[in-house]
């Protein structure tokens, strides 16, 4: 009973969000982001994604070991992404990382498609 009165006079625990700033930990896994320059189109991210977010799209051709093969880059359907970070762990080139952004609700699915890797093709 005494606990009750003590709690009554302390500040309540409710956080102020959305009227205040959201507080997330440093390792919080939010929206995915890519650095298109580092991406080489190896396709490992597509193979390991549990939510089939990533599709490799052909963007041209390149020469590898004397043969001409398709050059691919990833397109991310981020509305399906579960922010697990497996692609981040498995990308050898460090092109992917998870930001702290989490306010992703939208009425337009296409606004959550990330295709900026298609634009930078080496």
């Amino acid at each position, binding site marked *: 009973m005494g*606990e*009750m009165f003590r*709690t009554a006079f302390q500040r309540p*625990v409710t956080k102020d969000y959305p009227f205040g700033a959201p507080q*997330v*930990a*440093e*390792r*919080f*896994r939010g929206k995915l982001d890519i650095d298109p320059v580092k991406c080489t189109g190896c396709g490992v991210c597509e*193979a*390991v*994604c*549990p*939510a089939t977010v990533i599709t490799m799209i052909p963007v041209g051709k390149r020469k590898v070991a004397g043969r001409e093969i398709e050059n691919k880059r990833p397109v991310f359907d981020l509305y399906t992404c*579960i*922010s*697990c*970070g*497996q692609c981040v*762990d498995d990308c050898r080139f460090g092109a992917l990382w*998870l930001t702290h952004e989490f306010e992703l609700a939208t009425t337009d699915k296409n606004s959550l498609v990330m295709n900026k890797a298609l634009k930078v093709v080496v």
Partner: protein
Amino acid sequence: MQYSPENMVPFGPVHPALKEPEYFKLILEGEKIVEVIPRIGYVHRGIERAAQDRTWIKNVYLFERICGICSFAHSIAYTQAIENLLQFEIPRRARYIRLIIAELERIHSHLLWLGLVGYWTGFDTLFMWIWKDREHVLDLVETITGNRIHKSYSTISGVRRDLPDNIGEPLRKEMKYIEERSEYYKSLVSSEETLVIRTRGIGRINQDIVRKLCPVGPLLRCTGIARDVRVEDPYAAYDEIIPDVKTSNDGDIASLLLLRIEEVKESCRLVLEAFEKIPSGPVKLTAPRSVPKGEAIFHVEAPRGELFYFVRSPGGTIPDRVKIRTPTMANLLTATEMLKGHTLADVPVVLTGMDPCFGCMDRVSIVELDKSKQWAIRGEELRQFGIDWYKQRRSKT
């Protein structure tokens, strides 16, 4: 048992007392319950079938989403089963980190249940206070793993990331805080008169019922039988940091309350001990994509009891069969047995005394067709079966 609509009260599937939907038919005489008939299958999601389409590493994320509260237990059971198949020896540091997170999860799960006991007995204040303290644990988990519930932290050859550098100070502070608050809650549940009369002597089970119906986890330990997978078959780092198995003796809900509070305190001690003794080294190795042919089983002590995984690999990148037996499945019949002879007012408290996680349990719904012995049933056939069944039922009543 024969019953008529007058003395059958449906509890669920959707009910304020249950977090997840399950249907219990309570057969009453007046306000006294004489039989409970459960029907499960309301949260069946086809996870075992979905696992057969995904590669080994993708399945880690599938299985951790079976349950929010014991998510990490599923995660480590699956990854350790595969590590057995691969015959890997994961780094020692990874084993210690797995222990720390598993115990943190046990604390959060028990605190969740304790708060919900307050909610189910109408004691909202206890509910709010305990969940306020649980936030401390969840914030700690978020600092370490990046997310509060679906931790995505264990991977096939260890853990994905190391602990943050300055985690020692907050860890010690929070564990000490949780220990103090557990002491306070222990005195509260023993002395708060209205809570005591709601929980003492309710749902009493004894060792005969236990031998007949084989419950697992805290439900088993509250009758005085000290069995715990962490001690009998150690995994992660439990062979070096040995938990002290707590029991309580009365077999009723009040003793379940005390038992879980004791387990919370024990988990705090284990976390601190593991953190002091943690060895340095790598936290994961590179795992191959394909797993050799074979079968592996693994069981862990999830917060609710013994969680059991069976994995069969055909020698490729995709599993052939994964079977999961969750603790709630084992406890369900014991809980319905606990209810007999009590009144309707005790139903929420007793049914949830086993800390049910129907989301975990329901994946194990077994489909039997007596016409053709199929293992899987097609979606369209299932839908047609459902339509026919309801049509038949409506024409009967």
